[in-house]
């Protein structure tokens, strides 16, 4: 029987596990969070259930049925609060996956497994572009604000400004409203013409994905009804305050997201949520040796196979496509990893769904692509790397004085991306700013901020007690 390790218990991972079980494999699912569901189905703990989860979560019933199917299945193990801290490529071509479990602040148990098949469903981080003043208390990423609203029912402020780009701003705004905040404005950086061109062109391609369009239309309607001002082609270009957020300056943005002089307007608020799309969590895929696409997602074929034998990928690490795409990809990955084929009847509808939602995702990505001139709203003292407190001026100055075109050197000379988050938050932004400052299109050393051999910080004591390669267990299933 095939033993499959699924990393990530969000929509893609759970769908993969369920499909793999249906095809007869034994499955183990791990996730670093306390509960399954991932970022998408983040919810209150079962000890404090709320009747409104279904209202707050799209596809909540799908989650409930996936979870129940897997939790009561003896052929499936689910380990939460379990992280992969390293993946080793061994000489025989197998992968050794090193796990640490338990409270990250205490002593953790370590374990190493060598699964027959590995399914990566590690998801994405939400991304926020730096803005002068964004380190003030009261500024949140859109994802963090939504997590607080969904997971804790806490609103980040009373008068909230939401800014950034992409359809994610809608559910964030809705969640904030449900948690009791007043959203005083939503500012979408993309211009209406660009959105219309990519959202609405070739409508026949969207046949079957129409509920996504109507879901988005529903959000728009909600804003109108709730009198939340929604402006496209606008962005927050500065955040004001002394001890915490007091106001923002918004401005019209041109097609490349450069602020248009003379269009600035000040809006009082006590919280700001910034969301400029998502960054896939690629470190495990990179450690496993998986090839990436030019857009820096994990390259997969029609069966969700990566370039590495026995390794599959599903969900946001293959493209930012939302829950429907993640569910479809997960189902295919699980089914094929367990020995099935995409030609099999049980995954026919998943295959169709994937094709449909992939096209939809491509359009959204194009409509909301980050403009090339966004950095013109930065000031020299705007912090870019928060962990190491490196500002935009330092990046420019060091890149200029060293004339370096190597990312590794630029990181080590500026210290950007070397802090606790290891570039998860700032990596793409640091790369972009350094490339711009050094005038290169690609770094000469070929490195990226996605490479993190230590995928999660580990206590030295725990590392010292980690199992030796001779103690590696074949994948253990009860």
């Amino acid at each position, binding site marked *: 029987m095939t033993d499959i390790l699924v990393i990530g218990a969000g929509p893609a991972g759970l769908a993969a596990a369920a499909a793999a079980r249906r095809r007869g494999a034994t499955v183990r699912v791990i996730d670093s969070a306390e509960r399954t569901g991932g970022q998408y189905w983040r919810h209150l703990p079962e000890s404090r259930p709320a009747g409104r989860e279904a209202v707050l979560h799209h596809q909540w019933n799908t989650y409930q049925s996936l979870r129940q199917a897997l939790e009561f299945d003896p052929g499936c193990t689910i380990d939460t609060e379990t992280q992969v801290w390293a993946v080793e490529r061994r000489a025989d071509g197998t992968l050794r996956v090193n796990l640490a479990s338990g409270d990250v602040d205490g002593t953790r148990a370590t374990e190493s497994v060598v699964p027959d098949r590995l399914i990566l469903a590690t998801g994405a981080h939400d991304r926020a572009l730096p803005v002068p003043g964004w380190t003030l208390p009261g500024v949140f990423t859109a994802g963090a604000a939504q997590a607080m609203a969904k997971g804790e029912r806490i609103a980040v402020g009373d008068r909230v400004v939401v800014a950034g780009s992409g359809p994610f701003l809608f559910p964030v705004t809705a969640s904030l409203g449900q948690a009791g905040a007043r959203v005083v404005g939503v500012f979408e950086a993309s211009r209406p013409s660009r959105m219309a061109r990519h959202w609405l062109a070739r409508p026949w391609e969207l046949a079957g994905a129409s509920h996504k369009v109507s879901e988005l239309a529903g959000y728009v309607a909600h804003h109108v009804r709730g009198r939340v001002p929604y402006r496209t082609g606008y962005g927050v270009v500065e955040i004001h305050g002394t001890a915490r957020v007091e106001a923002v300056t918004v401005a019209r943005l041109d097609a490349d997201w450069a602020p248009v002089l003379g269009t600035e307007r000040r809006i009082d608020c006590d919280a700001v949520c910034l969301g400029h799309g998502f960054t896939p969590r690629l470190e495990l895929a990179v450690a496993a040796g998986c090839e990436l696409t030019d857009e820096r997602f994990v390259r997969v074929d029609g069966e969700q196979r990566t370039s590495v034998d026995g390794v599959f990928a599903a969900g946001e690490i293959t493209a930012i496509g939302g829950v429907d795409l993640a569910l479809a990809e997960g189902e295919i990955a699980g089914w094929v990893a367990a020995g099935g084929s995409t030609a099999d009847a049980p995954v026919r509808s998943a295959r169709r769904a994937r094709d449909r939602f992939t096209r939809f995702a491509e359009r959204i990505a194009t409509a909301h692509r980050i403009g090339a001139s966004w950095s013109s709203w930065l000031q020299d003292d705007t912090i870019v790397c928060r962990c190491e407190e490196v500002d935009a001026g330092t990046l420019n100055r060091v890149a200029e004085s060293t004339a370096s075109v190597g990312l590794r*050197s630029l990181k080590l000379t500026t210290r950007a991306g070397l802090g606790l988050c*290891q570039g998860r938050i700032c990596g793409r932004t640091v790369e972009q700013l350094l490339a711009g400052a050094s005038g290169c299109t690609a770094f*000469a050393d070929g490195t990226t901020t996605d490479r993190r051999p230590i995928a999660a910080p580990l206590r030295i004591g725990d590392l010292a007690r980690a199992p030796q390669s001779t103690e590696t267990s074949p994948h253990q299933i009860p």
Partner: protein
Amino acid sequence: MRVAIIGAGITGAACARLLARAGYDVTVVERGAVAGGTSASCEGNLLVSDKTPGPELDLAVDASVRWPLVARELHDELGPGFPSIEFEPKGGLVVSMTPEGAEPLRAFAASQRAVGIHAREIATDDALELEPHLSREITAAVHYPQDAQVQPVVAVEALLASARRAGARVMTSTEVVGSLHDAGGRMAGVSTSRGDVHADLVVNAAGPWAGEVAGALGLSLPVLPRRGMVLVTTRMPHRVFRKVYDADYVGATQSGDADLQTSTVVESTAAGTVLIGSSRQRVGFDDRLDVDVIREIATKSLRLFPFLEDMQVLRTYGGFRPYMPDHLPVIGADPRVPGLYHVTGHEGAGIGLSVSSAEILLALMNGTTPPLDPAPFAIDRPTLTPHLQEVAS
């Protein structure tokens, strides 16, 4: 006189700066980016403490005098806007952890004192005063005030920035694919992935890849990569004040054994992280992560500094050290091809030894007297000759 230097690591950078300032027309040719190889994957050691009396220690002593001057010159020349190379003459502390280890350490230190090294044997209580977080289990301690540290990547960038100010050019993403010769067989430059670079003299400073470069030039050079891994912790308040290492480190640096060897070296960086090294392993250019290696480094570091137990490893990096079969660098002209020089094979000591190696190279090119006898570093020295033939055959 035009010089083409192959490799923009610490060695190439130090040579480029010195030659450019001496009036040579310098072009540095680098396959990838500046400081993209070994120099970006090491600890920035400027050590005398780990070296046995002999030519390498002589070179290290020379370097320990030069580095403070070079650091000051770079700072004065490049100004406060340039990132600091973090030169820190912090000194080293070598300790033994077992009763049996005490005597060999004392004997080693005595042999170094005999050639003028400041190797101060101190009582274990005094060692604990210097390093209060050190294990109480230490059995002997030697303090080396001459040991120092730099941030190696910034050091390379600074040396090259200085070289550029003296007129040097740096070509990155440019791979050497062959050699150019004049009618008499002398080097006339190198052909690269971006066209020919004409030069009267060519310096192979490609570190562990110097063997490959020699191959592209039609020659053999028995330099091999030896892999070393280092762990980096999260930032913390300073608790390690010197370079502190377990006495078995000395054994590992001198060994030619291909198997994994680890010995503990612990030190803080200016940024507040702690570097924990290191391993030495001959695995070719295999750069895959091996948890067994980093676990062993972690385990041994706890013996030295028990407080590290609760500290977190944030990242790890591995580099390839250029390793010669007789453990001495190669610095000088290649008698097989007039106009070709090699400066490589410093293994784990290249950051420190770079500035003195460059001085020897300059003197050999100028025909002046080098700061120390270059014969032990010659490519045709007796201990290297058999290996040269071995590779050539």
